[in-house]
């Protein structure tokens, strides 16, 4: 088990986790229709920043804001006990390693950064590898950053797949037409042991994580939800469905993804557990999605908890290459 001691989100909905959470809670959406944003591409609907952003600067800003929130726990980024883990699919104009190195260098970190490139599951997979590296004692702290910015490359590719909805997406709706892309950066700081003078308890603890491949098709999810189902069963080990308080689903609003998730959730007995789906507010933020959606789900769970009981929250994702991932976090 590892502790989240700080987090941050910067998206078109706001700067800081709190602003983003409040916006989503108030029902605000970052989705807009774009006609001439990129040459040649058909009009599309997405959640984009108003002005072009620098990938590296955006990540640095998010990390700095997350570090400021680490009440009581001193995270020294120059320490060899800290590691930077970047979750992204297309990085800084197709460069993945370079921006990670620039970020780690900016914070004076001596270790080689890790880039997780496991398609749209990367943000959850990055937290899973952080947990493993911390629990085996290889590192003490992990700074997990998820970021993707939209480009002509990505939008044209998803359009060639006929995967984009021209209108705001409708996850799990029978008349859903596809997904909307989104831009965001999100950071979570995990540590093995939060500081003793910790004024605030840890935001949450990361309890379990699992990754499974469908071994079925590169771009279409399994019809039986096999990989996602196995991930859910792994992270629920020792718990029954009634113990789970919230599931943050992927809910891209493509025909096949949402069907697959429904099947996997039902097979795992989670059909009656409250779900959270965030794509209608923030779009599909690709490498950022797993990090960003974990933060919002945790905040929503804490916000609605009027008992002193610990809540169990699952975040699940699926992506190209047949890969599925899930984590279970525990929050107060």
């Amino acid at each position, binding site marked *: 088990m590892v502790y989240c001691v700080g987090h941050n989100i910067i998206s078109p909905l706001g700067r800081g986790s709190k602003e983003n959470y409040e916006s989503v809670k108030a029902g605000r959406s970052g989705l807009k229709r774009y006609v001439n944003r990129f*040459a*040649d591409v058909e009009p599309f609907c997405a959640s984009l920043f108003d002005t072009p952003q620098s990938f590296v600067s955006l990540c640095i800003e998010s990390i700095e804001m997350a570090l400021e929130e680490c009440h009581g726990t001193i995270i020294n980024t120059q320490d060899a006990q800290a590691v930077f883990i970047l979750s992204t*699919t*297309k*990085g800084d104009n*197709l460069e*993945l*390693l370079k921006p*990670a*190195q620039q970020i780690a260098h900016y914070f004076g970190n001596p270790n*080689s*950064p*890790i*880039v*997780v*490139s*496991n*398609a749209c599951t990367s943000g959850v*997979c990055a937290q899973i*590898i952080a*947990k*493993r*590296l911390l*629990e*085996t004692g*290889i590192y003490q702290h992990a700074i997990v950053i998820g970021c993707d910015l939209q480009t*002509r*490359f990505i939008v*044209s*590719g998803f*359009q*060639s*797949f006929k995967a984009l909805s021209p209108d705001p997406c409708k996850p799990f709706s029978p008349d859903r037409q596809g997904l909307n892309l989104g831009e965001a950066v999100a950071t979570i700081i995990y540590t093995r042991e939060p500081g003793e003078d910790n004024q605030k308890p840890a935001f949450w603890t990361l309890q*379990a994580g*699992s*990754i*499974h*491949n*469908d*071994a*079925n*098709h*590169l*771009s279409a999810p399994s019809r039986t939800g*096999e*990989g996602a189902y*196995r991930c859910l069963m*792994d992270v629920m*080990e020792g718990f029954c469905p009634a113990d789970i308080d919230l599931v943050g689903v992927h809910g891209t609003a493509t025909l096949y993804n949402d069907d697959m998730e429904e099947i996997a959730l039902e097979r795992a007995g989670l059909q009656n557990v409250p779900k959270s789906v965030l794509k209608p507010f923030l779009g599909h933020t690709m490498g950022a999605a797993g990090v960003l959606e974990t933060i919002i789900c945790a905040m929503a769970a804490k916000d609605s908890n009027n008992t002193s009981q610990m809540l169990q929250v699952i975040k699940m994702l699926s*992506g*190209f*290459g*047949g*890969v599925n991932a899930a984590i279970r976090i525990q929050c107060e």
Partner: protein
Amino acid sequence: MRVTHQIEISPTSVVLDGQTIVVEAVGDAMLVELYRRYVCDYPKFFKMDTLSRLGFVAAEILLKETKVDAVILANRSASIKNDNDYLATISEGRYYPSPALFVYTLPNIVTGEIAIRRHVQGETSFYVLDKPDDLDPIIRATMSNDLQSSNLQTVLAGWVECSEPNRFNAKLQIIWNN
């Protein structure tokens, strides 16, 4: 952890468990030669990008008699060679984005190709790292017995890199947990 089998492939050589395999072709054509010699019955191979072909033939040669629980690969330049091929289909004035190329613009697709062929329903992960040694702590942490609920016994792990046509290298291993 112990390594039971290892394969190294460069554009001019193939070394399996320390023994050189004699190949006639070099570069991309060599991967096709390896496919014809060791696989032959999987025409989807021809649809793959070079990175996937490289990882796929390396895995096929290594996994002849072994089932693995997970596939964990890494490289330095992600899917850049195929990214550039896809970019050529969306050049200004000749904009016909190719879905068949776009699907390979993610480096983890090679792990998916291996998983489909070998029915690996365990973990598949792809990391982008500075150098092959950086994968070692990741593999150690992933295979640690205390952590895994689904107990990883055997993992196919290693480095698959392809930055330009005819320029690639791979070093894949079968690693056992005891």
